[in-house]
């Protein structure tokens, strides 16, 4: 199989949101066929240029973004495509030379202590992975100390905090205070979740509020532009 054909198959698989062979894909016809992860492995086995594969990831997600904006794709379709890229990236990354230059930044995310809800967090995490961020997900019900320890270890550019309960959203403020106490000022803190708001973000000293995953992507790009003086 030549490089072009291999890349086309990867592109098709990502756009169809076909993660693995157990997945039915966008139109319900792809169960049993090799998924994106398998195709990337195959491509690497036949020495397709990893940088070309990475370019296909970006091009495919741009196409998916357009399909979502046009209304043809819905949230689960976009998530499936983002998951394809996120999973395939884990396989591709060791093969990339000078891999850091393609990464948009490091993003640490957690649902705060006392809160078991993970929908928003998972959507944000998946979409950001698909958009090229290096994402570390600490899971749900994560204590202030564990979040701060993870920030020290992972050294993210951004920290995302999620809460769905009115009784747990106060934990977000505790995290921000603890970060300041620890002298950590170089991580931008973004919050999200149904009871949170722009006003609440301001009140607790967060750097931003994201109403959903796409808003988070836009917000991160804005922040990066501001940081780089663009």
């Amino acid at each position, binding site marked *: 199989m030549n490089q072009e054909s291999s890349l086309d198959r990867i592109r098709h698989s990502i756009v169809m949101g076909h993660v693995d062979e157990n997945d039915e894909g966008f139109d319900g016809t792809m169960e049993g066929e090799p998924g994106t992860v398998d195709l990337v492995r195959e491509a690497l086995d036949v020495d397709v240029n990893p940088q070309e594969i990475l370019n296909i990831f970006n091009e495919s997600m741009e196409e998916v973004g357009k399909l979502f904006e046009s209304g043809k794709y*819905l949230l*689960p*379709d976009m998530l499936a495509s983002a*998951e394809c890229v996120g999973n395939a990236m884990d396989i591709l990354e060791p093969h990339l030379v000078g891999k850091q230059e393609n990464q948009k930044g490091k993003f640490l995310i957690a649902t705060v202590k006392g809160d*078991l*809800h993970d929908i928003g967090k998972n*959507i944000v995490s998946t979409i950001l992975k698909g958009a090229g961020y290096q994402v570390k997900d600490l899971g749900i019900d994560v204590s202030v100390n564990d979040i701060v320890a993870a920030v020290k270890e992972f050294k993210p550019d951004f920290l995302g905090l999620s809460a769905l309960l009115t*009784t747990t959203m106060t934990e977000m403020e505790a995290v921000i205070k603890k970060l300041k106490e620890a002298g950590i000022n170089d991580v931008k803190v973004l919050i999200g979740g149904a009871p949170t708001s722009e006003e609440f973000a301001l009140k607790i000293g967060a750097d931003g509020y994201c109403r959903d*995953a796409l808003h988070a992507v836009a917000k991160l790009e804005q922040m990066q532009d501001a940081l780089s003086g663009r």
Partner: protein
Amino acid sequence: MKLKHQPLEMMTTKEKERIHASSCFVLDQAGLRVKNARIIDALVACGAIYENGRISVPQSMVENALESVPGTIRFRAPDPDRSFTVDAAGKDVFLGTGGQALYVLRSNRGVWTRQPAGCRDLEEIVSLCQRLSKVDFITRPMECDVALDRMDEEKARIFASNTTKPMNLANLIDPGKLSKVIEIVGDPAYLSFIVCLVTSPLAVDDTAADKLLAISGQGIPVCISSCSQAGTTAPLSEVGEMIQLNAEVLFGIVLVQAVNPGAPVLYRGIPITADLLSDGSPRWCQPESIRRVALAAEMCRYYGVPCCGTAGVSDEPVPSVQAVSEKAVSLTYQVAAGAQYINSAFGMLDRIMSVAPEQYVIDNMIAALVESELGKAQAFDERGVADAAVAAAKEAMVRLGVEVDELMDRELRSRVAFVNTRKEEYSKESMDSQQTFICSAVESPSSSLVFMKGARKGLRAGWLYIGKRIEAPLDISGLESKQELA
């Protein structure tokens, strides 16, 4: 209000038996994720198995628990004339408010502004609900602006000072404060609570479990609540969501009856959908959610357990004609489905985030219209209930200054047709497939992504209603009970 006919049935007995069997399969095979040692010990002592952080409950424990649940619950009130009895086998329906909004909407010359809710707002709303004729009990409608360690006592004081109706304080923050709360309201018999024990899919909230046992230990009625969102925290499939939600509520019943046999509990199942057409937010009042919540009430009646229903949580951000239409249809179906104690979400908007005093008055009117229209129905079959829902919605709109046109009528008819229409088979094969899907999803570290990806087929098949918003100016100047706001 009293139901004139046998409640609406949208499932056959055989189908309900299948749902029950599949829920028991899920409880036994997947079990629930739990860390609370007290719960684990209590359930293991009764026959459950704890392995790898999950507790599996055999069907025999479910059957035993269902047998020990009291079929009637007396809700007493400071004013004895306001007391009532919920009877799982009866036809009396009692309506109350919904709980835990964060904001109050205030109107200034037709412009709505959203303000954080506080104690004064809570006093105002409880006092307003005391005066509203269709509010039989009051569920705490909003948060207070006090520290969490003072929240329980502050809520109790506001209720004790502003109402003589039965008091549902919604969530208990600190089980250690329960005796103080009882002291403030004067009698535990005035109280009831709601506990969201399980976070979908199938994960026990360990602090909620302590609250549940503290409340039921006092013999205070508690609504065991689970609110799944199909497509994100449960399968998008109606069959799948019913199996999972039913398992989650049954688990709560098993736990309470294992620790406090004979304690009064209500089954509170809220199987709504997630808005996978946009951002994944909950769709509280859309036709497919209205249908599923009615099915949950039907499932509860099958068990003969007192049913805490949910209705009228509009998805609209501020009072509107669309909100009126959503609330009227939702309440009609929930009443007709036979829920006896209904959090009918008076005043609530914005997917439970906000309340508006004016909306309470509007909802009081809607409740009266629903009662009247259901009273005219010849039977609570699908056609009779659909007609009542449309008639209640249209009459509410007329009273709010809307000239109901053919397009509005068509949209309302389209919604009730959707509520009445089954999209999936309730066959054994379908149940088997869904129970397997649930068991595999809960093993995934990102079950919400599994459910979302699994929803693509159902989305293409039209399982989420796509209709038109009903738009018209809302005029509340002529509302008969508007003086209640004074």
